[in-house]
């Protein structure tokens, strides 16, 4: 069948202004806390003050008597009525963790929910929480994973010996031999503190009984509406198709809103019990303890290197402080397994060994956050490469060039069993160093050092596997296999196109991107296309938005479905125009003859199809609704090389980034301005990881960073101007797209940590612990005692 097209101005590749941003810029967005339903109640949670304690009793009687209070729900009341969260099975699990929605016998972290109070307003619910009397019997606290794995350590879960929630050993290639014959063995420790995504909008949920045609409707600030629906129905004991999940405008997600938490499920339970809408909004103090944390890793890393700086083998020991429970549903395995398994990154590593553990402690559970284990994996290796470069007296960029997987070697299977293809590692490094004028930067560094300024330069290269299909697990050993999503394309009765997919946006403009792809595939004007992404009632099955997958999955599924829909449009159009199929194409929302002498609008076609079906042969009117699933099978590697220059104040330890050059390969770009925003946003979070952000606990498991005055995220003064360049190459996925949401945070952590270490090395100092706070910098310089 022919499919000629006019040479149109393509929508893909241009920075189309996002219609979806208009309500947001005008102040008419609808975020979770904006939802008000008649008769709505409000929930506040009483949370544990202890990191580890037996709950002898929970007395909510005074709370219940407070005027305006409707109910105070305890764990004992829920017990047996709903399914608790059991850690997801994983081949590498150390044991099982069971998390009750509200604590029953024990609390295992400060902030764990004990009681849910329902009242007429939130302030009253909080008043009532203060009246609840809890009798705690404190238990010994596990506060460090390296202590927690010892035989004599207290247990967070009786079913997890040595507090291992996850443990894995891996070896491929002859590691021992590589270390034997190495010219140089470099060993390094790396420590990255605990982080959290810090979405500006924290979590929240409104649950309502029979608010729409569904028995239970749940609005949730969340990234995975279908997953929520599935597990909510399962745990509460409902039919899945009685449940509708709607995602309103979402103020950031970054993976923190991709986990399944007890609080929202409690709201759903209460809505069904009370038969009134129930709202819970997570306030910032709660968010600091109740939403998942990230990173918190100790890495000991060794590389065997030959005299020219080639990596012969990599061996690592990783400890991740994964907190009190294996988060539902990604499991505690995410950071430990990814950090160790993905450490080789874009470098040729012939032999790899690692031992990695996720150790339970009495802290907030750790869940997925932008790039998960890859930033620490990359930064620890990049710092090691710089040390190797110093010792071998090879320039750090040159050393990397010698080790990056070159395009000529692709497809290339690395020692972690990943196959690299269709990706530009070396071109990205060359581009960033060319645009950054690397040689001149080094010369300027020499001059600056001579002038008494402490300047450092860091380079980091990353490989980022995006858009994972079914053959590549998001977390090794997990039984959960996201890997195929669906899109429905439907011409409405007026000929406009609806694109529906369960891929909600938290600002990455998924609706706009999918409209752009659909416009090109179908020849329909952008303004005639809308995209629905947020409602299980209107979108087909999709896993959701995470792991840098929506560009690949959403676009790929659109392309697949569009192929079929386009044929149907052409067939009916040809019939209505009275010409042969080979003589038509579709452009500007109409079917045209190739000589442009005749055309019929999609509006007219749709009206005829829907309202005058008797005039159309049945075989030409199969309906204009097509749903296609897309599984890209493999993942698509994205890449980048970031080059950072810092000035360190040797008196205060202050670090200023004075130059930032990034070159990335993000495949075929749909909307350049949106991509730029994603990349720079990721860089900002990486800078935050490297220099500012840290959640601190004391030895009793009490959090010491409890407000935004304690947990510091970058402000406009902390992020420099980013010079962004592209060395793109298409992926093998449909459309050649790649994900770009997570790569840049990896490059940023690597490049900034290396730049700081490089500065310190000029005065014989070093730094292994991050964030590189001013104090750690001074300790690394020897200005303050203690080392870093």
């Amino acid at each position, binding site marked *: 069948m022919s499919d000629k097209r006019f040479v149109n101005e393509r929508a893909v590749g241009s920075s189309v202004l996002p219609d979806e941003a208009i309500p947001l810029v005008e102040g008419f967005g609808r975020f979770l806390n904006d939802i008000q339903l008649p008769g709505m109640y409000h929930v506040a949670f009483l949370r544990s003050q202890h990191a580890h304690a037996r709950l002898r009793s929970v007395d909510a009687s005074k709370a219940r008597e407070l005027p305006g209070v409707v109910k105070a729900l305890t764990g004992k009341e829920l017990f047996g009525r709903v399914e608790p969260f059991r850690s997801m099975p994983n081949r590498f699990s150390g044991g099982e963790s069971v998390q009750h929605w509200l604590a029953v016998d024990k609390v295992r972290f400060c902030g764990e929910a004990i009681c849910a109070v329902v009242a007429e307003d939130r*302030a009253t619910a909080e008043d009532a929480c203060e009246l609840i009397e809890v009798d705690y019997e404190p238990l010994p606290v596990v506060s460090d994973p390296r202590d927690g794995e010892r035989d004599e350590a207290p247990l967070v879960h009786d079913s997890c010996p040595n507090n291992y929630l996850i443990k894995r050993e891996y070896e491929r290639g002859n590691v021992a031999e590589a270390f034997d014959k190495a010219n140089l063995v470099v060993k390094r420790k790396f420590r990255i503190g605990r982080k959290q995504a810090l979405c500006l909008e924290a979590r929240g949920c409104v649950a309502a009984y029979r608010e729409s045609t569904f028995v239970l409707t749940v609005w949730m600030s969340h990234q995975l509406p279908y997953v929520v629906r599935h597990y909510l129905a399962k745990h509460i004991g409902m039919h899945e198709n009685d449940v509708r999940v709607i995602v309103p405008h979402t103020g950031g997600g970054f993976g923190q809103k991709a986990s399944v938490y007890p609080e929202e499920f409690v709201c759903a339970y209460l809505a069904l019990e009370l038969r009134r809408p129930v709202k819970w909004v997570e*306030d910032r103090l709660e968010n600091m303890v109740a939403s998942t944390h990230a990173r918190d890793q100790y890495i000991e890393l060794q590389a065997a290197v030959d005299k020219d700086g080639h990596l012969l083998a990599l061996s690592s020991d990783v400890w991740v402080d994964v907190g009190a429970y294996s988060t539902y549903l990604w499991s505690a395995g995410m950071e430990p397994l990814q950090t160790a398994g993905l450490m080789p990154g874009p470098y040729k590593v012939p032999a790899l060994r690692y031992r990695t553990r996720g150790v339970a402690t009495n802290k907030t559970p750790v869940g997925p956050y932008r790039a998960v284990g890859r930033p620490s994996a990359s930064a620890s290796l990049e710092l090691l490469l710089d040390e190797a470069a110093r010792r071998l007296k090879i320039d750090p960029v040159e050393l990397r060039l010698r080790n990056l997987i070159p395009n000529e070697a692709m497809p290339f299977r690395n020692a972690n069993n990943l196959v690299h293809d269709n990706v530009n590692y070396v071109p990205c490094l060359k581009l960033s160093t060319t645009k950054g004028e690397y040689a001149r930067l080094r010369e300027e560094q020499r001059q600056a050092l001579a002038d008494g300024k402490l300047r450092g330069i860091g380079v980091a290269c990353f490989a980022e596997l995006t858009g994972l299909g079914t053959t590549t697990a998001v977390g090794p050993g997990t039984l959960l296999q996201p890997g195929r999503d669906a899109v429905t394309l439907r011409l409405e009765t007026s000929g406009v196109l609806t694109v529906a997919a369960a891929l909600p946006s938290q600002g990455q403009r998924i609706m706009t991107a999918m409209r752009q792809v659909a416009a090109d595939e179908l020849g329909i004007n952008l303004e005639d296309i809308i995209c629905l992404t947020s409602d299980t009632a209107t979108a087909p099955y999709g896993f959701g938005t995470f792991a840098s997958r929506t560009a690949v999955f959403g676009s790929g599924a659109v392309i697949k479905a569009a192929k079929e829909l386009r044929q149907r449009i052409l067939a009916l159009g040809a019939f209505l125009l009275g010409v042969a199929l080979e003589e038509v194409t579709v452009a500007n929302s109409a079917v045209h003859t190739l000589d442009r002498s005749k055309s019929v609008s999609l509006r007219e076609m749709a009206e005829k199809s829907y309202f005058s079906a008797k005039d159309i042969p049945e075989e030409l009117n199969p309906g204009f609704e097509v749903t296609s699933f897309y599984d890209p099978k493999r993942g698509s590697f994205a890449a980048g090389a970031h080059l950072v220059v810092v000035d360190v104040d040797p*008196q*205060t*330890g*202050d670090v200023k980034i004075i130059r930032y050059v990034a070159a990335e390969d993000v495949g075929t770009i749909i909307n350049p301005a949106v991509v730029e925003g994603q990349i720079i946003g990721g860089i900002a979070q990486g800078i935050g990881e490297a220099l500012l952000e840290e959640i601190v606990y004391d030895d009793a498991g009490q959090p010491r960073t409890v407000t935004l005055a*304690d947990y510091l995220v970058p*402000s406009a003064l902390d992020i420099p101007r980013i010079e962004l360049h592209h060395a793109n190459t298409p992926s093998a996925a449909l459309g050649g797209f790649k994900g770009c949401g997570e790569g840049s945070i990896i490059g940023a952590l690597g490049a900034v940590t290396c730049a700081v270490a490089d500065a310190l090395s000029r005065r014989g100092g070093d730094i292994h612990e991050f964030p590189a706070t001013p104090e750690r910098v001074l300790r690394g310089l020897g200005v303050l005692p203690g080392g870093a």
Partner: protein
Amino acid sequence: MKPAWFDYHAPRSVDEALHLLSNAGPDGRVLAGGQSLMPMLNCRIISPSVLVDINRIEELAYLETRPDSLILGALVRHADLLRDPQVRAGWPLLAEATAYVAHPAIRNRGTVCGSVSHNDPAAEQPSVLVTLDGTVLIAGPAGRRELAAGDFLTGMMSNALKPGEMVVGLRYPRPAVGTGAAFVEFARRLGDFALAGAAGTLTMRGGVCEKARITVVGMGGGPFRARDAEAALTGRSLDSTQCKNAFAEAAAKVVAAVDPAEDVHASASYRRHLAGVLTTRALETALARSGGV
């Protein structure tokens, strides 16, 4: 994070406010800018049973620059100081320090008197008042009185107000001719609570320091008045060959004398180190601004 219940009053005169404060007893609080108080209420760190909102008391909304002093009432906002060219010209230390207070929206509402009364160890305004030999104007059931800044600021988050009293204004003497001043602060991000800060003034005549004032911020208690360091500089020649040593000596005295606290942002030893670094920087800049050697 909604506050617990309180009774709320918005008096229109100082007398009415004092009456309400007396009735409220120790559980009553003055609400001025609210930029320190309301976060504590929202977080339920404190739950006062009575709030006396002074924002309607017009007699407290004055800011006057006089030949010998600057006086301001309890409703003067940080931003009002920054917007007043007379303040910037006559009391440059005050203007420079005020620019470090948080961010524009906070400065628009937060009051100078409120910040002084609250006496957070990391705050800027208390240290400036001390450095400029300022005075706190107080009203209470027994009438009006004044206290020197150093006597008013008794320790971390505490002041010398008696029950039923409130701060109604501040007075800053005009710095003498030949005075250079500087306020330097180091925080993790601009506008954050200072890890440490230093306010320094040097009144110079003929290359000799006639008067030095050095106050250090962030050392755990109220502002730390570095008297030993001041003494080491007073009467001393600070020409270009001598000032480096003199300032080093002053900084060493500061480092020896301060006893900073540790918190999640910084250890005591780092704060102590910073105190010395920032004292030196403040003195160097103050000297450069003093207009003469």
